[in-house]
């Protein structure tokens, strides 16, 4: 089983698999995001309390969800690399960091633009907002730490360790609206019971969430290919791949 696992995680296999998956992920993401944006912005009814301002949810919630998912991906990949010494894990962790940081920034800014008409302010030191801001700083920390070492292997290890330690912030962000009094609204989709939204509002949101996940898969594959090439450029398989 371990032989199979190590073969699956071998750089040439990962490089070729990522190349094969990228166009499919992009295609599915384009369909889902296209449908979600049109249905959410044009056809979904306006909210009885928030009016049309609620439509920001169609980009805010997927960005926020992806900010947590990308961090978890980065931390799991880093842990796999640290524990089992699988080098591709470092490549995946390095690839996920800038994507996650960009979506965390998007979640913070779109949330701020939603907060102004709903709460009367762009920013409040609320548990959800503050923990999401800490997540952004963690991303910046991981990216900077990787580049701070002359030896790339040491940078990889240090960044992976920070990523693993920082994963404690992920459940804090997710459950902050439940654990503390928060200006931020509670969960609307990820509830144990029935979601609070009607289907006409929910379907485009689910499409956007799925579309953003496929988009993440596509850009992650492309970045992982770059990271693998950077790390393996002296190896025989890269020489052969470049020659062909």
């Amino acid at each position, binding site marked *: 089983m371990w032989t199979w696992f190590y073969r699956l995680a071998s750089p040439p296999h990962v490089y070729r698999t990522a190349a094969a998956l990228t166009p499919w992920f992009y295609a599915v993401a384009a369909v889902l995001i296209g449908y979600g944006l049109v249905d959410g912005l044009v056809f979904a009814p306006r909210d009885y309390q928030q009016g049309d301002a609620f*439509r920001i949810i*169609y980009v805010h919630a*997927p960005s926020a969800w992806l900010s947590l998912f990308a961090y978890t991906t980065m931390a799991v990949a880093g842990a796999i690399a640290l524990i089992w010494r699988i080098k591709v894990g470092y490549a995946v962790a390095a690839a996920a960091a800038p*994507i996650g940081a960009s979506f965390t920034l*998007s979640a913070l800014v779109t949330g701020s633009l939603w907060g102004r008409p709903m709460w009367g302010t762009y920013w409040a030191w609320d548990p959800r907002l503050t923990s999401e801001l800490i997540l952004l700083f963690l991303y910046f920390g991981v990216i900077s730490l990787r580049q701070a070492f002359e030896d790339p292997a040491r940078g990889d290890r240090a960044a992976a360790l920070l990523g693993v330690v920082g994963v404690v912030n992920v459940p804090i962000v997710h459950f902050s609206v439940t654990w503390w009094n928060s200006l931020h609204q509670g969960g609307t989709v990820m509830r144990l019971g029935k979601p609070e939204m009607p289907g006409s509002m929910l379907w485009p949101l689910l499409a956007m969430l799925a579309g953003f996940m496929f988009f993440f898969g596509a850009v992650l594959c492309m970045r992982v290919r*770059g990271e693998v090439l950077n790390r393996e450029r002296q190896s025989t398989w890269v020489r052969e791949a470049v020659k062909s």
Partner: protein
Amino acid sequence: MGGYARFVWPSISLAIGVLIWNIWSARRHHARALLRATRAVAMARSEEQ
């Protein structure tokens, strides 16, 4: 947008901008890595000759 256009459209634009930046950045990252690998192969070949 019922008076909320100045909040909704910048949010949508920013999110689309982040998507576009990610595509551009990932493509650039891969293209640069490919260029470096090609140069490494060319250097190795010239050293062999």
